[in-house]
């Protein structure tokens, strides 16, 4: 510890080099931080938000594109531990022009009344809620979505049908926000579907979302529901809403492998950059090491000095990197909700610790070889060394 001032002095000797190394480390490590935060949120430590933890989605076992019979709702509602069940259906359709990605958002039909009992995190003025429930052609939109497209209460929204053979002519009856996360969804009244598909065999549910009495019941309910329909006309797959959202991930490609490869490449680049810097600065100081040895510094002290300097630099880079990564996470949170995890992305403590660990390891690993080599040099050779 008493060498700390000397280490700092050494690190500051070639300011430009230290600065460049720290910035290059910070940039690479912020990238690593964001990738690790994503990986962590998606595959390790992600937790459903409080209200969401009790929600469970029932869908067709084979694929989400197959509908379920409407009478399933009553049967699911009888499963012990189920507080409320609502049916929903993915309408799809085209808003304005499908070629513009910004016009893509979820358009779902749902039991108007039950929607608010299942999504208890939705915040909406009471009169808007009642207006939506009363209007068979009414819809509510998420606040963020409404801001993006300029929807206001009373506006008409026209959605051209593609999966279904009819168009939607909806009136915005309310704008909701959520205490959990903004889901970019337009919900419209199920009665619209009933009216449009009267007597059609296509009047079926896309799936059901149920609210469990408590978080602990989720696993048992999922099993019970799937067993109940195992031999029915439509076997189901039931999982927590959180897991259901994750199942869409594989659609974007093999995200796990992609994230891992990026992390690996970045870490290795960081290691190379630091190792390079340390090798350069050690080579410049061989003669100085000879002087230190003459003054009576032992080999371990010299190794410690050099490794310490490297660790200091890389930790500084790491800290700066985490700060920038935090900023990048904020930017991602503002972006589109490809997966819900992107909406709540932050640098969690385990990610922070891992990142600091990586910087420390990189710092030590990159300096150890030149440090030991320098410390081992014969004093006479070291003093005579010219670069």
């Amino acid at each position, binding site marked *: 510890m008493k060498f700390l001032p000397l280490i700092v002095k050494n690190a500051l000797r070639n300011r*430009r*080099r230290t600065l*460049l*190394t720290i*910035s*290059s*480390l910070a*940039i*690479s490590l*912020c*990238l690593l931080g964001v*990738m690790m935060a994503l990986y962590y949120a998606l595959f390790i430590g992600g937790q459903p938000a409080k209200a969401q933890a009790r929600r469970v989605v029932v869908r067709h*076992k*084979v*694929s*989400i*594109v*197959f509908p379920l019979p409407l009478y399933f709702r009553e049967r699911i509602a009888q499963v012990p531990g189920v507080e409320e069940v609502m049916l929903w259906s993915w309408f*799809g359709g*085209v808003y304005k022009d*499908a070629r513009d*990605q910004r016009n893509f958002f979820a358009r779902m039909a749902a039991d108007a009344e039950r929607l608010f009992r299942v999504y208890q995190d939705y915040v909406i003025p009471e009169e808007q809620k009642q207006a939506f429930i009363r209007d068979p052609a009414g819809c509510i939109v998420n606040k963020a979505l409404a801001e993006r497209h300029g929807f206001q209460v009373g506006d008409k929204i026209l959605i*051209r*049908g*593609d*999966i279904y*053979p009819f168009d939607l002519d909806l009136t915005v009856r309310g704008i909701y926000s959520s205490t959990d996360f903004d889901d970019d969804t337009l919900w419209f009244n199920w009665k619209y579907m009933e009216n449009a598909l009267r007597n059609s*065999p296509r009047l079926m549910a896309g799936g059901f979302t149920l609210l469990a009495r408590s978080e602990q019941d989720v696993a048992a309910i999922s099993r019970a529901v799937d067993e109940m329909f195992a031999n029915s006309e439509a076997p189901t797959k039931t999982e927590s809403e959180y897991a259901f959202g994750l*199942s869409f991930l*594989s*659609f*974007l*490609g*093999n995200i796990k492998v*992609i994230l891992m*490869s*990026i992390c690996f*490449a*970045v870490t*290795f*680049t*960081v290691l*190379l*950059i630091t*190792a*390079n*810097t340390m*090798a*350069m600065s050690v080579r410049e100081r061989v003669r100085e090491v000879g002087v230190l040895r003459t003054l009576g510094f032992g080999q371990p002290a010299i190794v410690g000095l050099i490794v310490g300097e490297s660790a200091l630099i890389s930790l500084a880079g790491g800290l700066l990197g985490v700060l920038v990564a935090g900023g990048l996470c904020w930017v991602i949170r503002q972006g589109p909700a*490809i997966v819900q995890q992107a909406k709540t992305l932050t640098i969690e403590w385990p990610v922070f610790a891992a990142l600091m660990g990586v910087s420390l390891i990189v710092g030590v690993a990159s300096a150890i070889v030149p440090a030991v080599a320098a410390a081992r040099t014969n004093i006479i050779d070291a003093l005579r060394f010219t*670069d």
Partner: protein
Amino acid sequence: MILPLSYNLRNLAVRRTTTAMTALGIALTVAVLAASFALVDGLRLALEASGHPLNILVTRKGSESELASNFERRVFDDLKFKPGIARNAAGEPLASLEVVTVINLVSVEFPEGANVNVRGVTPVGLELREDARLTEGRWFTPGRREATVGSSIAKRYPEARPGRKIRFGRGEWEVVGVYDSEQMARNSEILVDLNQVAADFGRESVLSSALVRATDPVAHQALINDLEADTRLNVQARSEKEYYAQQTSSGDLIRYLGTVVAVIMAVGSCFGAMNTMYAAVARRSREIGTLRVLGFSRSAILVSFFIESLMLAALGGALGILLVLPVNGLSTGIGSFVTFSEIAFQLRITPQTMAAAFLFALAMGAAGGLLPAFQAARKEILTALREG
């Protein structure tokens, strides 16, 4: 007077550790960029190679995909005698009524299962897919619960190999053969008998789409216009090639992610290169002074150091391309939001990608080498000679 290139080459060789480490840093950055391009290019090439230029895909008006389309059998009966449709040896119109649905299969890559297209076709439908050749077994027999699977399906889904049975619809389907087509997107499908599968899914009268073959390119466009304008049919007609090309947007996210990551890494690697070049300039201070005494101008020194940085980057670029070459031909899958199922494709490193990656490396070298080169050029002869 310009300094010879061998001077820079030798300098890089003398400091081989530093050179290697800096070049490797650049190489990794280049590799990330090239790998993400390889993914996107692989997808694009697979889709571009798909679809027959004379084929027209007909769906219900307003449907972006076959899966979302509800195509009535009576509409098909009306349209198959439209003028401009080619006929086979037996004199039947080359028009195929098809039904497309999705099933979930467990794959090697995704143990939770991925979605796969199942397509019901008639013998005419197989005739329209003349590019598909059997590599194993035989075609399914009409009227039987048999399936012939595309080569990508057989490769990626152990459940769907010949001899195995897949469960969907109202029972089991025996896999009797594997086909392979140069039109790669076709290899991600399972082909079964139209009437069998339509009955299983209760879609005897409402199917998905029709695929028709025009007699020639002129008739192709005329037929598309004719079908689109026919309000009685109420259908959407587009060239099959166009339909596949549309699905390349699935790769957009990966291209975006790859580019962002590579650019951020590039800034880091740039600083690394800058560090190396500054060190080179500092160490060769006396050398620079000597060169100036010998009569080399400031601009010659500037150019020389700049070129050295470019050489370093070029080495990194070449190394990066070498690093990423093994991914060429690797097969993977991505979800298509058009077919709601997986398209299997192979990663492809195209010459364009290599060129782009190399230029990217050179850009890093240029950005990292400019400031140090200026510093070298600005040195005063006397101070330079005294330094170091």
